[in-house]
């Protein structure tokens, strides 16, 4: 058995054990009817799940292919609205009544698939013209397309701010369609976890194949990649579409665990954590070109955001600290600049975290530290 296979098996085994432990933990918490678990832990798990998918999918384009796209939240918006509207339509048609059972599962699967596929389709339409440009121009044109997507959704008669007929979108989702109440979020938490695991796994398969090699080559030197016979625009558009697909899936997860949908959530920069800049921070922090890095950074940034927004430490902090942390985007942008200036590679650089390498990595890190202390 090769070291690679061993590594895969080890990682899979550890994930399986962790899932099992979480399963028993959840059941005991449910029996105890633990409020904190239901209202705080489980929603956090859901949020982390879609943040992980988002940052990993953006990393494909930004980190592995080296193209800065700031339309990712636009694709997420498409996924969120598609799944919400589709599930709502099925409910109104009387296909399911309560959120369990076979019929509802079918609707779930359909909603998620369609969310991904429609995002991918729009990704194709945007990607073909946009990816003819590079660098600054690509950033600007994706910014433009992202805004157009959000504006379009806003103006659709059946979507938009108040479009989901029975009152506004915000009030209807918990009651209807895909929106899960906190109890349902506990019941369906494994849906989120499994979808995330599944999505990350197939992104890994993509990266560790000819597709991954082709796009990393494009990142390092486009002209040389062409000289190696790589159809650069083909692979660029393909990856862009692939990434948009997962952003759509993340959007569907988002609409499951949020009672409300509003296009304001998906704009370029706002004070919630769902904006394209926040995503770029996650990818850069984790390491452009490291999927595991994106996962770790997504969880870290989620915790940081929570710490800033809900931390009790803040009320006892000096006034100016409170003011600054009252504007989380300020904190995130400063983090972004600091990371880019002092550690442009992020936490992991191009490396992937794997348990089998852990002992060796730890050894290296510690010997480095010792070396530094000794003044080497």
């Amino acid at each position: 058995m090769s070291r690679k296979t061993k590594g895969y098996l080890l990682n899979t085994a550890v994930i399986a054990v962790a899932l099992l432990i979480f399963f028993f933990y959840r059941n005991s918490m449910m029996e105890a009817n633990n409020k904190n678990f239901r209202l705080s832990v489980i929603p956090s798990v859901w949020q982390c799940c879609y943040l992980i998918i988002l940052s990993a999918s953006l990393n494909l384009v930004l980190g592995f292919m080296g193209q800065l796209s700031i339309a990712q939240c636009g694709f997420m918006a498409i996924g969120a609205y598609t799944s919400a509207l589709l599930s709502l339509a099925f409910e109104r048609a009387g296909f399911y009544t309560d959120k369990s059972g076979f019929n509802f599962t079918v609707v779930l699967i359909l909603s998620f698939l369609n969310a991904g596929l429609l995002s991918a389709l729009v990704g194709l339409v945007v990607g073909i013209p946009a990816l003819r440009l590079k660098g600054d121009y690509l950033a600007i044109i994706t910014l433009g397309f992202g805004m157009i997507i959000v504006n379009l959704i806003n103006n659709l008669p059946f979507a938009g701010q108040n479009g989901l007929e029975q009152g506004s979108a915000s009030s209807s989702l918990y009651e209807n369609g895909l929106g899960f109440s906190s109890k349902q979020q506990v019941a369906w938490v494994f849906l989120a976890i499994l979808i995330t695991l599944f999505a990350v796994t197939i992104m890994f398969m993509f990266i560790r194949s000819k597709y991954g090699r082709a796009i990393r080559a494009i990142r390092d030197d486009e002209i040389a990649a062409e000289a190696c016979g790589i159809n650069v625009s083909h692979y660029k558009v393909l990856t862009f579409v692939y990434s948009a697909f997962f952003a759509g899936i993340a959007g569907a997860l988002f609409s499951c665990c949020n009672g409300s949908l509003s296009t304001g959530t998906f704009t370029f920069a706002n004070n919630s954590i769902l904006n394209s800049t926040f995503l770029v921070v996650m990818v850069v922090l984790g390491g452009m070109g490291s999927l595991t890095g994106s996962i770790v950074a997504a969880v870290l940034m989620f915790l940081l955001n929570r710490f800033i927004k809900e931390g009790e430490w803040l009320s006892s902090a000096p006034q100016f600290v409170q003011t600054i942390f009252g504007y989380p985007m300020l904190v995130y942008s400063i983090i972004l600049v600091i990371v880019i200036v002092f550690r442009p590679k992020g936490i992991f650089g191009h490396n992937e975290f794997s348990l089998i390498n852990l002992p060796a990595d730890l050894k290296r890190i510690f010997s480095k530290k010792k070396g530094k202390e000794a003044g080497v």
Partner: protein
Amino acid sequence: MTIFLSTLMVGLRLGSIYALIALGYTMVYGIIRMINFAHGDFIMVGGYTLVFTMPVMTEKLGLPAWTGVVFAIIVCAIVGVLVELLAYRPVRKKGTGMSALITAIAMSLILENLAQAIPAIGPNPKIPQVIFPASSLTLAGITIDTTTIYTIVVAGAMMVLLTLLVKKTSFGRAMRAVSENKKAAVLMGVSVDRTILLTFAIGASLAAVAALMYIAQYPLVFTTIGSSLGLKAFVAAVLGGIGSLPGAMLGGLIIGMAESFTVSYISSAMADTFVYLILIIVLLIRPVGILGKNVREKV
């Protein structure tokens, strides 16, 4: 006919302001090949400086309100230089084009949010005092307000000055040398870092002047004032050919006209969408813009 002519004047006025801002984008791009996403926010910096300094000028010194622009220029130039020194330069020396670009986006957000975090500014918009007393001129049957005339004249004068600066002075020569070839410029004894700093200072000062002219017409200053203005000016710079000074002026005028005529003849809600569409079409058909030079990548 009167509608047409007054629309034309509004277009000229808007266009002059966009051109002033676009010049800042274009100068910086010409010299370091990077889009300074934070440039739009220099307008916001200039706007707030004016809000705070104009009362001092009028009440304490008895000078006209617009003299506050001196402080706005100074503050904007300092902010521009700081942004370059603290963020862009370290990243440029170390990183790739990608990290420079990400830093620029981050700097824009930092400026906007930092302004909000300053207690004297806060999240609510501020209303500046009247800058040019309302009066108008009637010429050949149409009435033009004086602010419009001032705006067009000032913008024209700034452009003439800038052209002279770039063409006739030693700084202008240094700037052109650095944008042509950095290594050769160093060999010729040009201080690249200093030239870049000065370019940032001048670009930011133009944004301060643009801020004065803009809030003279639309008296409201808020922290994100620069993002949509900046974006339109950026579209103007790209349209004219980024890196080209006459291109920025031409692009500014075209975008100003397009916006003014869309508002007058189609709908005001469509104006922004229209500007985005122009951007996307230009980028796809002729990414180097109207007056831009086509640069081949060397193989």
